[in-house]
């Protein structure tokens, strides 16, 4: 690996993950290194739910990091992906977000070079010239001009891609607990219910931290604390796998009374039980659909995916960096193919809790921007990540920042910073 480190990035060399210099969130060189070492490196990046490309010829345009990628289902029913850039002169080939190629061909509009679902080049107009004039040289070989291919894996219906040959097997990459929770949520065929997109003016890693932060959840989000959808006092765990992947889970209605009493003593803005009420409680009238009684799972698979279950809402959240201080968050909402109409309607109503206008989740976009706004200077200053000690590890409770330390441990190793 190229060992270039931005010279102005002053990050103490000891194995300490409790303080991160702010320049990591606001530096173009760091951003470009991330694209090379993380997104083009040995990581699995979420591309699609299999249900988004259900038929032969289906495709979806997306990104790995900020590189445009198309994921396709070939005529052989296999899933492929390639960089959305014609091998000829670099033009974008696929210009729709979703669609179906009836003949299985992907043709660049610029000079009509035509590729198949695998990204192999099949057609070059005027290859042999016109009436003896022009044409490609005799040594031109279409086989040498495939699209840049992405290695793909379909894990229980979630499709991931990687540019690197060194990326380990997907289950090994995720780790035991993260893959367990992925299979728990993807335990049967899913039905896509829609997509929403949120554009946030902050560095993507502020959002990664947020999804590994059980400390903030009952302090920033009133709905979580007041209605007990999530409280740090509930039974739950924070689990780290391979440092930077994590699972947070909690079971609603399992309060540790002593812990809840302690929370009440802190007079939190967000804990207003008995004071803050809803006119229509049907929003929170969910259905227990998992036997384990777990009502909240935030699974964070570095670098680009969060899979969530909050009450009866299920969603993929795809994190797409668009620059050092901007990212797009793509929410893909789903249920299961065998959902009853009642359960489907519960999900649609509870989607009010999540997404860009989510009664719980909207503040996460806000908190990301709050941080970005404040760190544009003093890049050598650092934050403080010490809740529940200094180690980068999970815990059997939710009063911790251990998973965020894990994020930075894994990040530094991968980035060689």
């Amino acid at each position, binding site marked *: 690996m190229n060992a270039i480190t931005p010279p102005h990035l002053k990050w103490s060399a000891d194995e300490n993950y409790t303080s991160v210099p702010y320049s990591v969130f606001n530096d173009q060189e760091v951003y470009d290194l991330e694209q090379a070492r993380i997104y083009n490196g040995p990581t699995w990046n979420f591309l699609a739910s299999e249900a988004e490309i259900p038929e032969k010829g289906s495709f979806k345009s997306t990104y790995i990091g900020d590189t445009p990628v198309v994921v396709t289902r070939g005529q052989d029913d296999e899933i492929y992906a390639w960089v959305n850039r014609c091998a000829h002169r670099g033009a974008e080939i696929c210009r729709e*977000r*979703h669609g179906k190629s009836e003949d299985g061909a992907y043709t660049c509009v610029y000079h009509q070079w035509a590729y198949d679902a695998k990204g192999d080049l099949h057609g070059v107009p005027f290859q042999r010239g016109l009436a003896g004039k022009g044409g490609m040289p005799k040594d031109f070989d279409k086989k040498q001009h495939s699209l840049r291919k992405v290695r793909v894996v379909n894990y229980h219906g979630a499709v991931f891609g990687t540019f690197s040959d060194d990326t380990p097997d997907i289950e090994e990459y995720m780790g035991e607990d993260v893959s367990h929770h992925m299979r728990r949520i993807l335990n049967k065929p899913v039905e*896509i*219910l*829609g*997509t*929403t*997109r*949120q*554009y*946030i*003016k902050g560095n993507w890693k502020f959002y990664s931290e947020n999804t590994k932060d059980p400390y903030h959840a009952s302090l*920033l989000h*009133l*709905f979580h604390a*007041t209605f007990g959808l999530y409280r740090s006092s509930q039974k739950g765990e924070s689990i780290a796998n391979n440092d930077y992947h994590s699972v947070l889970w909690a079971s609603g209605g399992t309060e540790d009374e002593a812990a809840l009493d302690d929370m009440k003593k802190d007079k939190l803005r*967000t804990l207003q039980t008995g004071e*803050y009420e*809803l*006119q*229509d409680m*049907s*929003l929170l009238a969910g259905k227990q659909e998992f036997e384990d009684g777990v009502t909240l799972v935030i699974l964070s698979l570095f670098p680009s995916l969060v899979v969530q279950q909050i009450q009866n809402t299920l969603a993929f959240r795809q994190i797409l960096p668009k620059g050092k201080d901007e990212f*797009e968050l793509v929410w893909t*909402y789903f249920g299961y193919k065998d959902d009853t109409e009642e359960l489907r309607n519960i999900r*649609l*109503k509870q*989607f*009010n809790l999540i*997404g*860009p*206008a*989510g*009664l719980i989740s*909207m*503040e996460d*976009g*806000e*908190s990301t*921007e709050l941080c970005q706004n404040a760190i544009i200077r003093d890049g050598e200053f650092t934050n403080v990540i010490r809740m529940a000690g200094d180690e980068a590890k999970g815990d059997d409770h939710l009063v911790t920042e251990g998973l965020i330390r894990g994020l930075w441990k894994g990040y530094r190793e991968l980035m060689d910073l």
Partner: protein
Amino acid sequence: MANSSLTLELKNEVEDLLNAYVQCIDDDDLERWPEFFTDECLYQVIPRENHEVGLPTAVMWCDSRGMLEDRITALRHANVYQVQWYRHIISNPVIKTDDGETFHVQSNYAVFKTCNDGESTVYNIGRYVDEVVRDKGVLKFKKRSAIYDTHRITTLMVIPV
């Protein structure tokens, strides 16, 4: 749909409803916003990309007056967001009715947003598709769908459109 029942008077009445609705929001008089709907109602803010392919997911989806009130209570007391103003521009209302009692209305909207830094941006544009009925003598929305083209929502959406 025959439109012979649409008198000029009724047309003005429907347009007054469309105008009063956006003025209520833009004036931050949000406690009155649920009053524009019938008790049993459907209000949704849904991206055009979902609507066009028949996917039901909306960013706001309220099927009772109570849920509308809860949105405003959350906005006032629960949610955390930057100080912001909306300014709606609405245009091109097309009003259809068979009986002069129920109206199917479509209009275009643009919402400009202004935050603390003073910059106004085009925040959300789309169209309203409405079913308007007479409720105790007053026209109200039985259904109002804001189907938005701006399918990339900047930061968050807390104020209804």
